[in-house]
């Protein structure tokens, strides 16, 4: 587990009191983000994202699955968050498990709330077959603010995911799926509606955006909010003391920063470069 000494903590708190942070950032500033897409040829979509010292790798595999629980969704999303050995040195046993299921649940509920894949093109056989997007998230290094890094990487991996064109052949009441022979006949996913998380840590009496691991260790509260490109809130989880006035002030910042962040991500993917 990462540890900070009393002196370090006092220093960190004092610095934040003056409105700057240990790494020279402003209170509401992100660390540099670098992004790579299409890093895994064996996956349908992939991305590798580095946020400060935090690094994650996301691979998306596309499969056709049976519809469960008579839902009408065209797409089922399955998230798994896994910690690679090197990063899990900080988290052992039960702690790692609860940590990864916390992240998984937050992503799942944010994507469900945002209704990301409400797309007619993705319809297979309603009530029978649906697309199964298996999103495997591998954490390579934990440098604080996992949630934001994971959500950004997931969004970009999904935006580069290729879904093969499928023809539905109906014979004697049963359906058969035929995948187009042309390997280039693929559609990219539309992810405009996909949300991203913005996380704040409450340190002393100040909220800071995108906490590093030192800041997370010294924090006494946390607020994670998922927003989509419209600025709608898809998911919130917080702990620690938080008053309503403070929250509404933060939400305006979240709305503004979220929009900028999502635009930047989309631009980067379009231009195929990193920022």
């Amino acid at each position, binding site marked *: 587990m990462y540890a900070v000494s009393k002196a370090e903590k006092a220093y960190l708190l004092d610095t934040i009191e003056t409105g700057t942070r240990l790494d020279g950032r402003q209170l509401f500033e992100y660390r540099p983000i670098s992004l790579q897409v299409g890093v*895994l*040829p*064996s*996956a349908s979509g*992939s991305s590798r994202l580095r946020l400060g*010292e935090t*690094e994650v*790798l996301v*691979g998306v*595999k596309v*499969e056709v699955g049976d519809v469960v629980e008579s839902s009408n969704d065209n797409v089922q999303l399955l998230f*798994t968050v*896994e910690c*690679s*050995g*090197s990063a899990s*040195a900080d988290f052992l046993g039960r702690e790692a498990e609860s940590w990864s299921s916390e992240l998984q649940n937050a992503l799942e509920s944010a994507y469900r709330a945002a209704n990301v894949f409400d797309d007619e093109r993705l319809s297979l056989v309603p009530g029978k077959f649906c697309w199964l997007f*298996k999103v*495997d998230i*591998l954490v*390579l*290094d*934990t*440098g604080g603010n996992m949630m934001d890094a994971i959500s950004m990487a997931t969004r970009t991996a999904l935006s580069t995911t290729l879904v093969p064109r499928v023809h539905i052949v109906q014979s004697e009441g049963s359906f058969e799926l035929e995948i187009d022979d042309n390997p280039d006949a693929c559609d990219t996913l539309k992810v405009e509606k996909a949300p991203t998380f913005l996380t704040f840590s409450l340190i002393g009496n100040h909220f800071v955006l995108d906490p590093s691991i030192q800041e997370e260790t010294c924090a006494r509260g946390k607020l994670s909010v998922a927003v989509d490109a419209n600025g709608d809130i898809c998911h919130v989880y917080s702990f620690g003391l938080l008053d309503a006035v403070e929250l509404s002030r933060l939400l305006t910042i979240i709305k503004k920063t979220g929009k900028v962040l999502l635009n930047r991500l989309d631009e980067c993917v379009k231009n195929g470069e990193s920022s």
Partner: protein
Amino acid sequence: MPREELISPDGLRTDGRRPLEIRKVTCRMGILPRADGSCHLEMGNTIVLATVYGPRELSSRQSSCGIIRCEYSMASFASTDRRRGKRSDRNSVEMASSIKKTFENVLLTDLFPKSRVDIFIQVLQADGSERSAAINAVTIAMVNAGIPMKDLIVSCSAGYMENTTVMDLNHVEMITRGPQLTLAIYASTERMATAHLESKASFEIFENLIAIAKKGCLQMFDVMHSSIERYSLNLIASRDHIATFGSRA
């Protein structure tokens, strides 16, 4: 179903290589700043990330020389079919323990008593010769961490198929289950560190496999050595830069 041809009439392999040709190797050192040593190694489409922590304090047991722990895991998206890789599955445990034993002999563990070195290997993409890739990546990560070693260990695989001996097997060649050998040698003395043979081979074939794998190891070493050298020279250059900067101030 007709068996797929592994060696074409022109003597080329499925990925267009000649029999005695290794894949393109690229490696990047020190990519994880929080670890003591790290290496991202690509051998063709096989991608391995090795991380080394240590020597660090041994919490429970006391020992007169340093101990090594090794963990090997495969990402769930590493192969073409999605598999939930578990650190505790038999393959990973075997791989981890064999890599641990390989490095126990080469690290100067008596220089750091009462401490341990942790090795973490993560396979990001599996396209054959994962064992060799892991060993090579760990060697470079050890260099990056500055842990004292007697020698560098390099590894390469070799296989026998359709009357030809080939080096550095890819996934298609590995699943044929022919005689295949993973060899690791000490780079400067060229002595064997580990050999791992799968399936039956006659004495002549085995000898041949060893010779070819050894050649592959040396080719591999050239690439690894030059990238270690490049990394170190960069470090030295940046240190000079800081020194001149400091004296000017």
